[in-house]
Structure formats: C-alpha cells, structure tokens
C-alpha cells in the first residue's frame, strides 16, 4: 500500500531504528564491542605479558594464586593474559582476512558482473572450482607449502574467502544492472565507470556488508581450528584455538585450560552471528539472504 504519505526518513536512519529495536542484535554488538576492546587494549588490560613465564607457577588452577585469577598454563604463563591476547590474534586474523577478501573480491566481482564476457566467464569458473573444493583442505595445503605463522594464515584464509565476496558482488551487480535507474543513467549519457561507481556499487553494499559480518566468525573459527591442529600461529603468540589444542594432555585435571578459550571462541562467534543477523534484518528488510 502506497498510502502512507511520504515519510522524512533516510535509509540509514531507518536501518538504525530497525537495528536498535532488535535485542539480539544489540547483545551481539555489545559482545563484539567487548572483544574488540580487549583486543585493542590488551597491553593495558592484561595483568602480565602474554609470553611472561613463571617456571615456579606451572599449571595453577583458577584462584589458586592471588596474582593469577584464572590460573596458569603448562609452562607457567598467566591464563587471563593469554585469553586477552588471544582476542587480539582472533581479531587481527579475522578482520585482515575479510579486509583482503573485500579488496580483492569486490572489484573482481563487480567487474565480472558488470562487463560480463570472457573475464566474467573465467572468474565464474574460478569461483565454481574454488567453491567445489573443500576450503579447509586448500588452506592446509597452502600453509604446508608456506609454513605457519600469522601472515601465512591470513594469506591462506584470504585466498578462500575473497570468493564469497566476489560471488555476492557479482550476483548483486548482475541484478542491479537490469534496474530501470541503471538504464536511466545510461540514457543521460553516464559512462560505464560512472554507472558502476555512482549507481550500482552503493546499492550493492548492504548484502556485501552482511556477507563480511558473517565472514568474520568463519575466519575466527578457521584460525582457531588451524591453531588447534598446530598449523596456526607460532609460539609464544596466544591463540584460543592453540590454547585448546595444547590443553589436550592436561584437560582431565586442569579443565579450565580447555573450557576458558572454548568459551571465548563461542562468545565471539555468537556475538558476530547476532550482529550479522541484526545487520541483515536492518539493512535488507525485504530479503532474508543468508550469506
């Protein structure tokens, strides 16, 4: 019904209103904000450095020692500090991966979708092949060639995740290209580049943003998984996945070594999922596209 006379509200304000009425989304935003805060200010917040080793305080239970609120690990490092620095690792890896994915995927997807032709054919086949290939195997392959370390992980995960962004961007541009306002832009003599940048990309941004917000927890999980397998970041850098992995041998007695980082991963994942759901509902109220 087009009856409800013109309202004075911009798209962004409308989206913000929808978002702020969504309690789960707000909870997600709070969780994500908290983790980001930990990651950024880890140096100030953590009671100890992540690699500070106390040989005399190995494998303490939480509360056992007044200086180590959450106990220590098998080599005598403060577990609370390791958890806080773990947030930094998770965030660095996941945000960098999505950033790289965006930088590579967005232009490739946009160009393929807009200009079509041979370039689109090649890109589409690459996307098909990469989608058919299990991403984890591919990542492990790259890491075993390049060796471990945070940079390698970021590179390896980026190679698989730009595909998602490129696919969504391409699909968006393909649909938007057929919109009447795009024809109208051609009709007034706008150049191809102008149409792409002024008319298509701004309208394609919502689903892409949503895809990125769902891509972050995927990357967090991938990093944790790789570190758990021992293919991730190198010692002494703290990583939640690695913390769960190395706790394997002691977990029957020192349960906190596995439980606490698992909890941290779970909370972060949950936060990003709620945030992503909220963003999707706020930015894309009509379609419920799952990225």
């Amino acid at each position: 019904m087009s009856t409800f006379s013109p309202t004075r509200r911009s798209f962004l304000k409308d989206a913000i209103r929808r978002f702020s009425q969504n309690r789960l989304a707000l909870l997600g935003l709070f969780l994500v904000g908290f983790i980001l805060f930990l990651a950024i200010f880890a140096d100030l917040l953590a009671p100890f450095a992540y690699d500070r080793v106390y040989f005399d305080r190995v494998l303490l239970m939480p509360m056992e020692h007044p200086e180590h609120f959450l106990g220590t690990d098998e080599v005598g490092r403060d577990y609370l500090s390791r958890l806080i620095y773990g947030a930094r690792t998770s965030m660095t890896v996941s945000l960098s991966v999505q950033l790289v994915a965006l930088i590579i995927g967005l232009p490739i997807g946009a160009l393929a979708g807009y200009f079509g032709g041979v370039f689109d054919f090649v890109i589409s086949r690459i996307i098909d092949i990469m989608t058919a290939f299990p991403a984890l195997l591919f990542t492990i392959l790259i890491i075993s060639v390049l060796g471990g370390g945070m940079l390698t992980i970021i590179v390896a995960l980026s190679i698989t995740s730009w595909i998602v962004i490129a696919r969504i961007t391409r699909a968006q541009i393909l649909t938007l290209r057929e919109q009447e306002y795009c024809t109208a832009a051609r009709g007034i003599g706008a150049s191809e580049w102008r149409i792409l940048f002024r008319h298509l990309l701004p309208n394609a941004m919502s689903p892409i943003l949503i895809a990125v917000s769902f891509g972050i927890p995927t990357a967090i999980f991938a990093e944790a998984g790789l570190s758990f397998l021992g293919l991730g970041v190198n010692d002494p850098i703290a990583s939640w996945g690695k913390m769960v992995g190395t706790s394997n041998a002691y977990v029957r007695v020192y349960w906190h070594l596995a439980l606490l980082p698992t909890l941290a991963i779970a909370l972060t994942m949950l936060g990003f999922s709620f945030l992503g759901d909220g963003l999707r509902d706020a930015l894309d109220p009509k379609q419920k596209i799952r990225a």
Partner: protein
Amino acid sequence: MGDTLLEVEDLHVHFPTPDGVVKAVNGISYSLAKQEILAIVGESGSGKSVGVLSLLRLIPDRDCHLRGSVHFEGSDLLQLSDVEMRELRGNRIAMVFQDPMTSLNPVLRIGDQIQESIIEHQGISEKVAKNRAIELLELVGIPEAEKRYRHYPHQFSGGMRQRIMIAAGLACEPSILIADEPTTALDVTIQAQIIDLVKKLRREIGMSVIWITHDLGIVAGLADRVAVMYAGKIVEFAPVDELFKNPQHPYSKGLLNSLPRLDTRSEEPLEAIEGFPPNLIDYPTTCPFLERCSSRTEQCQTPPAQQALTPSHQVWCHHAVKV
C-alpha cells in the same frame, strides 16, 4: 433488484504500525442485492480492497482491528470462528485477485486446484468433481477443457489464468463473486473477454458480483450500482447511470473530468485534481477531501454526514444539491 444478500454496516479497518495506526477504512456501509453487480471505485490507498478483503477476514486478525458488522445468510461474518469462516470462503463467497499467477499454485495441475475446493466443501467423489471441473473450464471459455484440465498454471496465458481463477471461484456455486481488480494486469482485448464472461455468468447462474477497480470505463459498462471511495470512506453511492450523468461529490466529478475519453478529443487541458490523498495515520478531522476540493467552504471543517439525494443516490458532501 431482488433481496439483499450482503449487508455491511459501519465497517472500520485499522492497522497498527510502528509509525502509528493506519486508518484504512473508516465506517463504510453498503448492501448487495441478488444478481447485482456492485462496483467499488477508488485509487490506491482509498481502502477499496482492504474494505472488501476484511469482509472475508483475509487479513490476519493480529494485523488489524475490525469494527462494524457484515450480515450474510443470517450470520455476522465478523463474529464467525475461523473454522466457520473457512467453510464460507470459496464456498459461498468466491474471490478473484489481480494477479492470476500468484493466486494459482504453480506445482499443481489446474484441474486439481479447481477440484480441491469442490471435494473440500461438498464432499463428493473425485470422479464427479473431475467432471464438474471440466464443465467449469468449458463454462469460462477454456478450449479443449478435457485436455487442458491436466495442464499446469505456467502453460496458460494471463487471460486464461484469470478465467481459471474464476472457474475455481465458481466451483461451489457461490452466491457472491468478489473480484479485486481482476483485469488490471490484462490487455484491453483480454479485459473485454473477461468482462463479457462475468456478465454472462451473472445472467446464467445468477450470482452477485462486487467488482473492485480504479477504472471508471469498466464500471460504466458493467456495474449496476457504484460506490466511490476516498481515504477509507464512501463519498458517493449511486446507480451507474445516475453517477455518470449527475455526479455530486467533487471527487467523483473530478475523477470523471480528469479522464481523457476515447470518443471525444479536445485541445483543452484535463481537469486534474490537484494535490494528494490525506495521510491515513494522521487522519483529518475535517472532510477528508477538503485539501483538494475546489468548492470548499467553512462548513467543510466538519466531516459531512450522509445525504440522500434520491432513495438510491447518497452523497457525503455538504454541498450536494437535491434534484
């Protein structure tokens, strides 16, 4: 015209939304006689569709507030339970919508879709129902009905699908057919076929029709009586000849004058109605047409009451002239 079949009294339909309550229908009353074709004319947002859909309670109760009464075959439709209402819909009252593609289930053969309501409401065997369905398809002018019975909706054109919708609507010999802009999506030559079909059905099986439309041209050739709606209210109600010859509400006059006519051509500009319909959330306390009316006076600050110019011609305007 014969006996009254349906009587709507003081119907209100309001929708609560985050921005406020949308007052879509604000106290409309009308009756429908046996074998009568009643046209409800209005623009988008006038409440013409909502006012009729809500009779059949097709809008979920939680989304809207209904007030008033709707008498049909001895009961008040607004008081019926959901089960009783379902029994009535498609059985005693049938509906045809604007878009024939979305109203038909794309994965079911059309024959089965027509049969479904017959078996559901009349409890007869599948074989009898099938023969009846084929009869109906022939009645609405589908060639080779026996063969087409097995086809799926996508195998028919828009006009044919609308015929099928009408056939499905007629399956249980309803006493009322409600048609919500059934020809708006169709071409004029196909529209002429459908209008012809509805007139034939009225003659042959004696059903009553409520035809919702924005097109005054269709109304002229089809309806017996016309209700003109504006901003959720009926502003004028008259037999069709009377309305076109002697329109009394400034809105009805405006609509008729703003239409370019095929049979006359003048260099004069059309008499457009300036402005836009009022906001239905912030509903005016004055006459709803006040802002766009060229003959407004002080009196129009209060909403006008019904005036009967003749027993059959009612107008809601302070300035209507008795003949």
